[in-house]
């Protein structure tokens, strides 16, 4: 079993509705958030958070995630405070995380935070009654990315059930693939793990699949034929710094690059996802393919994050459906 402890965290934070992890969310809760995101996609600009203050505390730099959260807050009428560089905050003077969170809790209705230390968001949620949204804690968890991945899959496939999901590239260190794997456990997926030996899916996640009756197939070949049966092709970046053996890196670095000519046999409904930033693992000629979905995926992050912010503030799906503040 892995990460079952986070179910405990959500129990503890019942009163303040923090989102530290969604790995323990059931189908009902996931569907609820997907329905919320769908509403926000139909009408992303509202005043439903008018008068609210959203703090974005980025103790570690992040471009996409921060912009997405801040856009979500702004488009719902909230005001945003925060910082993007801990060097300019009191953290650099030695202030503890607890003190920073306690201080900001006096000003904000919700705190979105990213931190380089693992478990930082969970700890923050324990020291304040203001809801915390984990925007990434080191290599540990990144629930809003998982939520937007789920929304992208749901939107493009019409369901989360019984899908063939191919994960390609760095499956060892890729936080997003681990989170997605766990969140899909109740939807009867079949995973294909395509990675070089050095970056293959860690044993603990394979064990997790076995314990949860999740089917998976491991392979190292990444060709037109091996991806022909995919519904979702989830690409990740193979980074040089992850390799202990640089000769191995040189050998495999070009083996996990997706090119347009590899899409000839793929299923009509297949979509390519990538958490971005992309470097060279998806050739630019793929961008024009109908299967390319990674930029839309990033846009879906806006709707997913609008849903998460509202959920932690206690705004319900009914509130959103009956919202009269749509612009």
């Amino acid at each position, binding site marked *: *079993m892995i990460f079952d*402890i986070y179910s405990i965290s959500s129990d503890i934070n019942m009163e303040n509705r923090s989102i530290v992890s969604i790995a323990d969310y059931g189908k009902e809760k996931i569907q609820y958030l997907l329905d919320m995101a769908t509403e926000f996609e139909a009408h992303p600009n509202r005043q439903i958070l008018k008068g609210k203050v959203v703090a974005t505390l980025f103790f570690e730099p992040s471009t996409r995630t921060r912009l997405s959260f801040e856009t979500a807050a702004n488009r719902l009428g909230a005001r945003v405070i925060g910082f993007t560089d801990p060097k300019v905050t009191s953290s650099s003077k030695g202030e503890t*995380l607890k003190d920073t969170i306690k201080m900001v809790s006096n000003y904000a209705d919700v705190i979105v935070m990213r931190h380089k230390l693992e*478990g930082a968001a969970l*700890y923050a949620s324990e020291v304040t009654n203001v809801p915390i949204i984990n925007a990434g804690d080191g290599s540990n968890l990144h629930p809003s990315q998982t939520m937007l991945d789920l929304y992208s899959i749901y939107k493009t496939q019409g369901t989360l059930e019984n899908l063939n999901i191919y994960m390609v590239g760095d499956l060892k260190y890729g936080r997003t693939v681990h989170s997605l794997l766990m969140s899909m456990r109740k939807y009867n997926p079949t995973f294909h793990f395509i990675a070089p030996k050095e970056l293959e899916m860690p044993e603990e996640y394979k064990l997790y699949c076995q314990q949860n009756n999740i089917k998976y197939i491991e392979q190292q070949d990444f060709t037109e034929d091996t991806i022909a049966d995919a519904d979702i092709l989830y690409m990740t970046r193979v980074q040089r710094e992850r390799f202990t053996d640089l000769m191995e890196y040189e050998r495999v670095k070009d083996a996990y690059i997706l090119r347009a000519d590899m899409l000839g046999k793929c299923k009509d409904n297949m979509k390519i996802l990538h958490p971005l930033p992309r470097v060279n693992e998806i050739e630019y000629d793929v961008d024009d393919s109908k299967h390319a979905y990674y930029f839309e995926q990033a846009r879906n992050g806006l709707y997913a994050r609008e849903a998460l912010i509202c959920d932690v503030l206690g705004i319900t799906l009914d509130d959103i459906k009956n919202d009269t503040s749509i612009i």
Partner: protein
Amino acid sequence: MEQNKENMMVAALENGSVIDHIPTDKLFTVAQLLQLRDCKEEVVIANNLKSNVMNKKGLLKISGKFFNEEEISQLAVICPNIRLTVIKDYKVVEKREVLLPDTLTNIVKCANPVCITNNEPMKTVFYRKDKDTLKCRYCGKEQKLKDIKLK
């Protein structure tokens, strides 16, 4: 015969605690944990005693010492399944097997250097995953009991 002598040793204690069934290789680790070097009360440290259950075992008898739950949790981490006997007025008032608790609060240090618990003035929390594995509440990393460092 050996068993009788051991019983006599325990029975001779007026007030205090007896820790029995200590693995022989852990005896001095436990003695160090309990800071017995500085203890001014009567202390008996016995090792390589014959045991039906463990073949050989260690035993500590400490006069005037009564363990709190935190100390018992620490003992459980160092060597699970030891037996603790509490004696008052020459009578055994409590005898229990010390088992690893489900939750350990501020007993164990996380081995993950980028865990928040190693970078903030805060308590650690570990959950028992199985008989020889603990899991950090915060970073989720698992550790084997044999590799554990106490906080």
